[in-house]
């Protein structure tokens, strides 16, 4: 398998850290996804999807357990990601799993709504600590 060609994005208050483990692409979102984070996230999502297709991963885990806030505009980027997967060919499709911390209110509310958008593609798993 080709090595991962996605670079981490680290800004003040927000970061995106992609890693590859076997056939699973991990994308950890941390901090606060507010308006300042919007351009980074909207730039990253299409690249990540392309990379997932190129690497033919079976699953992408979007780890948001350390993402303390996300506004509706950034949430839109995650919807776009789901849309990419939904429109991919069957062979290129992969599972999207959100790793959440159920103690965070927004995650309960918004990630659940995301999952209900495309229950066949999106899973939600609770982060159980290190």
């Amino acid at each position, binding site marked *: 398998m080709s090595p991962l060609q996605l670079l981490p994005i680290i800004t003040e208050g927000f970061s995106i850290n992609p890693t590859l483990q076997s056939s699973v692409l991990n994308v950890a979102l941390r901090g*606060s996804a507010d*308006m300042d984070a919007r351009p980074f996230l909207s730039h990253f999502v299409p690249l990540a999807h392309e990379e997932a297709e190129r690497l033919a991963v079976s699953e992408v885990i979007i780890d948001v357990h350390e993402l303390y*806030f996300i*506004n*509706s*505009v950034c*949430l*839109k980027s995650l*919807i*776009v990601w*789901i*849309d990419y997967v*939904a429109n991919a060919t069957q062979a290129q499709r992969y599972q999207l799993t959100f790793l959440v911390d159920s103690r965070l*209110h927004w995650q*309960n*509310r918004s990630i*659940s*709504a*995301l*999952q*209900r*958008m*495309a*229950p066949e593609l999106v899973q939600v798993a609770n982060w159980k600590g290190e």
Partner: protein
Amino acid sequence: MTRTSRRIGLLVDWLEDEYQDKVLAGVDAEAQANGVGLLCIAGGVLRSPFRFGARRNFIYDLVGPDCIDGLVIMSGTLGNYIGPSKLARYCERYRPLPMCSIGVALQGIPSVLVDNAKGMRDAMLHLIDSHGYRRIAFIRGPGVNEEAEERYRVYREVLGENGLPFNPDLVTLGNFQASSGAEAVRQMYDERHVAFDAIVAANDFMAIGVMDALQARGIRVPQDVAVVGFDDIREGRFAPTPLTTVRQPLDRQGKQALELVLAQIDGQTIDENIILHTELVRRQSCGCSSHELPDRPVPEFSTDESDVGAVFSEHKARILADVTQAIWTSSPDVDVSIGVELVEAFKNSLPPDSVNTFIGTLEAAVQVAAESGGNVDAWQAVVTTLRRFTLAATVNSPDLRQNAEELCHEARVLVGSAAERTQARKRLEVEHWSRLLRKAGEALYTSLDVAAVMHTVQEQIPRLGIKSAYLSMFESGQENSRFSLAYDSTGRGVEKRRGEIFPSSQLVPEGVFDDNERQTFIVEPLFFEHDQLGFVLFELGPTHGVVYETLRDQISSALKGALLVQQLVEETTRRELAERDRLQKEMEIAERIQTSILPKNLQAEGLEIAAVMLPAADVGGDYYDVLPFDGGCWLAIGDVAGHGLRTGLIMMMLQSIVSALVRHNLWASPRDLLRTVNAVIYENIRRRLGQDEHATLTLFRLDAQGRLVFAGAHEDIIIYRARDRRLEVIPTPGTWVGAVRSIDAGTVESEQHLQTGDVVLLYTDGLTEAMDENQQVFGIDRLSAEFGKVAESPVGAIRDHILGTVRQFAASQDDDMTLLVVRYTG
């Protein structure tokens, strides 16, 4: 423009060469002597085909009676590419100003010319008669240059007179630049394969180019090929092989021309041209021996000690002729009468007991030569001449001979040392000017706006020894200019006149020239490629014309850069303002859409309702609605992701669709209704608008019995249970509308039962996500707590308390805030 003192203009192509510098020096000296001001306008060669050459011509259009009383035209260079007849027609524009042409006879204009024919004839005859050359090549000037063509005509004439065949392959066209001399060598050797033993060039620059090209090919000058030029410029005197050339009296041409202009101003009619002599200067490039020694043999003397004085007296004319020729050849600006003093001092210093006055006299003469740009080292020829005569005259006087040898040795050491010092001083001077100009350039090129450029120019001018300078920039066209910079060390206060608009033909605003003091200004055009920016006047300080040319170039580039930056800033600001204006209008429209469509009537049977929507400056997409009907009421709340007009439009779509669907079926299932809303919104947003917005939306249908049925995904609902005085937070387990084609699978219908007094709190994330200065969000916990504090209050008071608390908490309002408080009263 009124003037009390006379001012004359001098049109010159540029000031980087000695030719122009020396003519300017002559004109300036005569202007000083007559107390008239001088404007030297350096506007390039007319219609020059070279890059940037003709682009500076525009400065000539500004010259006229508004700024000068008469005009000297350096036609010899100005008209190189148009010829005398077109140049004469060009000069008609300056009528009725009195004029004088230098170098080229112009129809209807008095002219100061040089005797090109005699000079060239002398040079050719010297090559043929003294050195025996037979195959002599010739490099012409530009085809329309009258002087160059005259030299070429004489070249052919002398060949014919001496029975030498004319070979067209030995003639090339040039352009007076050194590069065309090198090109001529290449053509004759590499293309035409012709051999020659001498080359004559129509000017010195081309001759120097020839010598460099020959040297690069390993061809020796003069052993293999002799070279002769025309003009006698400094570069020729200091060439590795000093250049034999024809000297034309450049400064005298300048003086004479100014005299003729002044005479015309005084009412005299000048009806003939003045022709000045030219003279052959024999140095080494033609094959003559070193140090410009006269090639005549020294006569034999047979005398003794007592007769040395007699010999000097008897042969005084011969000795003086040889000494003055040596002086004249090496140092054109030294008065040759110094030769008389030198010969006399040498003669008087020969006797053993005499006082040595010769060395002192020689030192003073050499000093003058050094200061006037002469070749000091070439003064060895003066010593050699004196020694040759003395040795011949003291064959029988060993003591005198010994003394003469010692004098000559001392003189040679003096000349050698002075030459070395002169070279060192010149080198230091060049370094000094290079350093000053480099610093000026660095300062100018890093000035990023016009004001900074002006400030830098003002700062650098005095450092370059320039006493005053006036810079003006064209104001939309060339007719008027803005007086942008005034530097004047005399403290007349003209600096205060900056910003004045004045006719460009005056060159400065009226009264800026000091009529009480005679001044000479160099007028340089400011331009960058095709852009004509304005002009600058420098009071003549340094005599190196290259200083003004370099400054002109640096200021032009800096100004162009600053103007580009200014344009960029203006354009960016204009676009930003336009964009801000557009956004502002968009926001105003969006806000009107958002607020105008809100329900005006909040009266519903069995319910008390209070609502508020507070749009943020950057309007979001909050939406709420209250649609009462007999037996119940529909409530809706949502938020379109994003900001601006598009968001407002989508919000309007939502309102319309929900309103229409509800009216169509008052008892419809909220889930079904939501599915339809999604289908329409998805189609409109994704397909028709090609956008990717989505919206949170929860639809509620509340009936008279307190049955609250709802579907969709939005913020959690908070219900105050009046009977238990407790709060319940109810999630909205659905999904958003507009994101996917179908939300059937993810949309469920939920139900709550309200008791009398129960209060339902609906809100948007503008409240829960409001942030304080520490970036802490208000959050649902604080919202619940504040709601709990006032839940028994009237709905209006609940609304106001919560909103007030959130606004107090938030550092700023970044999103719309919407609050809907509904109390079920049964």
